[in-house]
């Protein structure tokens, strides 16, 4: 079997046993990328060929002296282009940062680099992670490997497409309202959003600080656990990172049953607007859980219907402030030929940001304005608390929740570009877990009649990624969706 078809775990085993070298891995992926990338457009920047081969050579040369390997050593990874990589351009999919080269590494990169992976490149995303399709990237959209006329989802669409198209073995994404889970569902791969605070945000370019969380996009649940192991831990550079112990997550992905676990089915997630094909696949999945020992229980999360409105107030308010630093003064894009300061601000931000980013900055600015704060931002925070309480109450009774990831399979490119509200609604099932800071995973659970993947979402209690991973692994092994791969047509 071609190297690029292997999962992270399989590739790791072959490398650790000495069966393959880092150099072979690098060359295999360089070839794969050269064949597939022109069609899928997963990456914004690729590590230059010579640099990648040199990094691989350094690993192969150093291996004798080190005498041990690390879980991610020589593993070919893609990094979402809103995670700062020292010396490597980090654009956030924006013209504003087209030439920005960070002088520092995000904490997750520091952790990764200690294990000497092969970083293949920086993956495409909606500008500043604002969007559900990668169509808002200043560098053009990525394509869905299952059908290139369809979106790969977003905002981590480049990462999900790259994993699905075997352009990397695993990738990092970031999730604010569904940006890891939704593209994973669209591309038929696994996407895990950890508990808020589980993974350091230091070096993740902020969209909405109280929601953003880095997580892995992988081919299997086991691979997600391997990646999560490398990401977690308290970071003194991030005040919101949790001081919590963490288990070896790969040990959670072992059992093929979920005996003694109670599976919650929130009725609000199966209401109006859910595509019948998607609904059917989720119902099938619930039956699978019952078959592997889960006790199924219907539950209700009454505040769910307010989640989208709440999210679009809080996330845009935070974004309006987080994106104020892109003013043309210090780094990044600056509009040319400005006569005075106000003009420089105005022209820089008008020309540097795309329409979706500008829309959200305006929404957020409005929500925080004098006289509107209480009615919008303060009220949204209050509703956020209600949504959290809903989950707390339900988690007294159930161990994890099952739901769809997205109301429909991946839509066609351009289909919702002119209708932002329709685009926002594609996050309706992923947003509540984001607002509550819960861990949630998306994994494939079937295909539509048109052959597009459908995703299943499992949500757990805060810091119980282990339960979410256990249930996801058991489901994955009770079905064979993980073996289905896209065929990339020219």
């Amino acid at each position, binding site marked *: 079997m071609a190297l690029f078809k292997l999962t992270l775990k399989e590739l790791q085993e072959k490398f650790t046993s000495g069966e393959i070298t880092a150099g072979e891995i690098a060359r295999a992926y360089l070839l794969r990328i050269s064949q597939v990338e022109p069609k899928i457009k997963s990456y914004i920047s690729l590590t230059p060929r010579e640099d990648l081969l040199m990094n691989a050579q350094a690993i192969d040369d150093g291996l004798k002296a080190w005498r041990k390997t690390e879980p991610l050593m020589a593993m070919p990874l893609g990094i979402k282009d*809103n*995670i*700062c990589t020292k010396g490597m351009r*980090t654009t*956030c999919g924006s013209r504003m*940062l087209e030439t*920005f080269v*960070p*002088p*520092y590494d*995000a904490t997750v990169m520091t952790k990764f680099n200690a294990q000497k992976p092969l970083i293949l490149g920086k993956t495409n995303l909606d500008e500043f992670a604002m969007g559900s399709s990668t169509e808002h990237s200043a560098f053009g959209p990525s394509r869905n490997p299952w059908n290139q006329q369809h979106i790969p989802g977003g905002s981590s669409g480049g990462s999900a497409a790259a994993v699905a198209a075997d352009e990397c073995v695993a990738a990092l994404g970031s999730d604010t309202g569904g940006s890891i889970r939704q593209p994973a569902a669209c591309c038929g791969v696994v996407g895990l959003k950890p508990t808020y605070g589980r993974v350091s*945000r*230091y*070096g*993740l*370019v*902020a969209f*909405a*600080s*109280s929601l953003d969380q880095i997580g892995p996009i992988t081919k299997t649940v086991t691979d997600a656990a391997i990646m999560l192991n490398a990401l977690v831990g308290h970071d*003194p*550079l*991030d*005040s*919101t990172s949790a001081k919590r112990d963490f288990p070896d997550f790969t040990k959670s992905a072992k059992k093929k049953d979920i005996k003694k676990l109670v599976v919650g089915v929130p009725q609000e997630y199966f209401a109006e607007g859910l595509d019948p094909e998607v609904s059917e696949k989720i119902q099938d999945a619930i039956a699978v859980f019952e078959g592997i020992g889960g006790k199924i229980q219907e539950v209700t999360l009454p505040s769910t219907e307010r989640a989208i409105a709440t999210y679009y107030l809080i996330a845009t*308010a*935070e974004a*309006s*402030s987080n*994106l*104020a*630093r*892109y*003013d043309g*003064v*210090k*780094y990044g894009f600056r509009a040319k030929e400005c006569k005075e*300061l106000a003009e420089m*601000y105005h022209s820089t931000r008008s020309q540097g940001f795309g329409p979706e980013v500008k829309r959200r900055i305006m929404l957020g*600015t409005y929500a*925080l*304005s*004098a006289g509107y*704060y209480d009615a919008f*931002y303060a009220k949204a925070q209050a509703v956020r608390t209600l949504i959290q309480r809903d989950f707390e109450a339900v988690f007294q009774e159930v161990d994890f929740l099952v739901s769809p990831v997205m109301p429909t399979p991946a839509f066609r490119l351009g289909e919702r570009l002119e209708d932002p509200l329709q685009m926002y609604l594609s996050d309706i099932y992923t947003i509540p877990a984001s607002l509550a800071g819960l861990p949630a995973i998306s994994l494939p659970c079937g295909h539509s009649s048109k052959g597009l993947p459908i995703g299943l979402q499992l949500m757990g209690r805060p810091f119980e990624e282990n339960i979410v991973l256990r249930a996801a692994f058991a489901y994955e092994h009770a079905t064979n969706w993980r073996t289905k791969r896209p065929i990339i047509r020219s």
Partner: protein
Amino acid sequence: MTYEPVIGVEVHAQLHTQTKLFCGCPTSFGLPPNTQVCPVCLGLPGSLPVLNQQAVEMAVRTGLALNCELSPTNQFSRKNYFYPDLPKGYQISQYDLPICGPGWLEISVNDKKKRVRITRAHLEEDAGKNVHEEGAEGSHVDLNRAGTPLLEIVTEPDLFSSEEVDAYLKALRDLLVYLDVCDGNMEQGSFRCEPNVSIRPKGQQTLGTKVELKNINSFRYAKDALDYEISRQAELLDEGGKVQQETRLWNVQLGQTAVMRSKEGAHDYRYFPDPDLLPVSIDAEWIEELGGTIPEIPSARLQRFVKDYQLSEYDAGILTDSKELADYFEACVKLFAHPKTVSNWVTGELLRELHSSGVTPEDSPLKPERLVELLELVDSGTVSLKAARELFPELYSTDKTAEQVVKEKGLVQVSDEGTLQTIIEEVLAAHPAQVEQYRGGKEAVIGYLVGQVMKASKGKANPGKVNEMLKRSLTS
């Protein structure tokens, strides 16, 4: 018409922490532009703030000294506005949950004491500086100062004259320096004040329209700017005009204030809690612990000096004017329990030498131990007061002991009766007329004879002893 000014003051005190408020960069002054910076204080994409505990501690100690209510949780908020010296496009400050709540500071104006109510004090980060070099193209931004911790201390409109403001500012500055949280340097901008002033006809209760004053970097300018502004507003009202709510800049050259921005130009700062920082918890135990580390404030120390050491208000005032000098004084008193004598030496000889050499009491080459040694030599009669004063400069500028200097200069006082008797007899023999006068009842003449003995001994004779022995010789 007679008007009464009503004034409130905002002070921005730079806390002299080792590092900035949200990153590990040093807070040093005067270094080349943009050398004291990191991803956090440059506002690079993806960087995050981490709160400096030392700054929190300094704010709590200041709050305790200002008798402020300290709430168990306080929170940082973002103040959003665009300016080139503000790298993130927002300033991390505190809004609805400041670290220090209501309190007060006692001031004294023309010997009358008064409490100025403190509204609040909150922590925030400083901005950088825009640099406009003469002749250079465009403007530049220096972010060395960006992220330096500030404590903004706000009063109620409790001050009714520029003299009161002056007294408040000085009392607050002394307090902060005493607490060792701020160096109090107005020229360098580590203690900045922004008064707001309105006037109203005397006797009226409601407040007039207030004007905020900026660009005040000395106590003198604060007073001048307020005096100017008060009379400007009075003239305006007398002419039937109206005071506009606005911010005005003090122009030192012209000695005038001028409009900087009107109320309409005021920002909507869109404050909201900073999601990058958790609420700060301050537990009662910690407050208590910190309470123990707060030094006595200057006014309380002055009163204690008057009471415990029986010093005059004037002397106690000089001693407590600086914490270091007061500490020096008390260190001496511990070793030599004659406070009045110590006070005379410290406020006299010592202060004179310190001033002329431009040295602070803490850095004085003459440590309390060596000064006390000299005072003991005077006390025991080994050296005369006059001689001690003469040798003081040498003692101050060298590291010799008092005894060494006394010996080297041959200033040891002669108290030996045999030696003195010889001199006395010689003097009496040389001045028979005066001896006659004394014995005839003109006892005042003894002063002249003592002087002659001192002269003959080259000033080394113990005058008290000489006096006593002369009397004995003359009456025998």
